[in-house]
């Protein structure tokens, strides 16, 4: 059983020190695509946080209840993706029907991130790091999602200002966004070593 302190350290660790976008390159495609405006970026971040928490919990449970006890490690990737895609699809349909306002704000991002490296990547990392208890898996997932939200909102703020700047024609769009992401990564590197 993990102590509260180690959970908190793990949470901060994955949110800032080992940020998914900046250190693990996960979720780069939607990160570049949806970071144009702060409101869409925040919606995207909320959607990612929600999905990664759900996915992390479900895949961890599947792993420890079924895959490991029966020695079905080979089925891991297939089962993970099936569970993630199916669960998110169900949640999306439910939210669309019963919470239309919520759907407009972040539900529209759900199909985009279902088959996205951020979610599957986080689930695989939880497995890779040998996390053996559910609370820690959930806390790490929430931290990862919030880290993504932080990263994408910062990027959106910068990009909104970049719109007014005189970017050379060849660098407009994806190139300057990538360069900005590189500089942000450099900034976040300052957090390395913060948690022993």
């Amino acid at each position, binding site marked *: 059983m993990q102590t509260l302190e180690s959970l908190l350290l793990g949470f901060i660790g994955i949110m800032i020190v080992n940020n998914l976008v900046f250190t693990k390159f996960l979720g780069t*495609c*939607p990160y*570049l*695509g*949806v970071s*144009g405006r702060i409101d*869409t970026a925040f*919606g*995207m971040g909320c*959607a990612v946080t929600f999905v990664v928490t759900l996915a992390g919990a479900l895949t961890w449970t599947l792993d420890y209840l*079924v895959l490991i006890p*029966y*020695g*079905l490690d*080979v*089925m891991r990737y*297939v*089962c993970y993706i*099936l*569970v993630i895609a*199916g669960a998110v*699809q*169900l949640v999306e*349909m*439910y939210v*669309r*029907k019963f919470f239309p306002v919520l759907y407009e704000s972040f539900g*529209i*991002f759900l*199909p*985009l991130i*279902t*088959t996205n490296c951020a979610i599957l990547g986080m689930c695989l990392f939880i497995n890779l790091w040998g996390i053996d208890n559910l609370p820690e898996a959930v806390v790490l997932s929430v931290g990862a999602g919030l880290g993504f939200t932080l990263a994408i909102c910062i990027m959106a703020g910068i990009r909104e200002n970049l719109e007014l700047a005189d970017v050379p024609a060849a660098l407009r769009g994806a190139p300057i966004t990538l360069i900005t992401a590189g500089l942000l990564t450099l900034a976040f590197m300052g957090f390395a070593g913060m948690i022993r």
Partner: protein
Amino acid sequence: MMIGATGMQTIIFSALLMIVLGLLFSVMLLAASIKLKVETDPKVEQIHAVLPNVDCGACGFAGCASYAKAVAQDPSLIGRCSPGGAATAAKIAAVLNLQISEGGAPKRPIIHCRACQQDKTYYGEYRGIIGCTSANAQPIVQACAFGCLGFGGCVRRCRFNALHIIDGLAVVDYDKCTGCGACVAGCPRGLIEMVPFTQEPMMVVACSSKENGRMTRAMCSVGCIGCGLCAKQTDVFTVKGNLARVDYARYQPSEAAETARQKCPTKAIVFRGKGAPADEKVSKTAAGAPAAS
């Protein structure tokens, strides 16, 4: 590679697991798709069908469904899909054109000005930011405060390379134009109007000058002087505020309309669209003379 007892067990368990999970999700999704159905706009569905459906987010929207919805409402967003490319943009344009205007005629832009550099009168040389919005903020660049500035504000908006500045005048290439309407917002003088093209080419009064005839003549050799000769021929033309206009609700190519066009003293009535003949040249009146005070 011998499959031992544990190997066989793995295969059986894997198959069982997939069958169980597959059945579970199929049932849940099937139930959900029936119970949780939401009505959608058929136009949006059609657009969604032509998109690559990768949900990559490159367009800046949250996936293909979102983009389909947005582009159905705002056609100037066509061309944002980078995996789909030009082919997808053309398909979206085709879908939207069928529904964009009444009577099924596709809308195309008409620029209400035909003055090239040699037709216009200039008070001085403009040395500011090369852009229509900036030039429009200057009170006197060219004499005519209504005409095309020729700095490409509309050209920049077009994603299909259908607008070009030729001789200081914006010209539409109707072979490339998809009618998305993005150019309209690019003109600070509001010269571009989206008109249903019931035939091609269409007759257009290519002038927007509200000044009286004497002033217009001094500023530009091809401007509409509001003489009303066209309106006398046929009620397709109406003159209001020193400016003639074609009533596109009544427009039909007819002898009267053609006569009216030929009677225009400044040749301000021209054809626009595919197969349009070139504009007639008009010799400059009082070249370079400033307007009388």
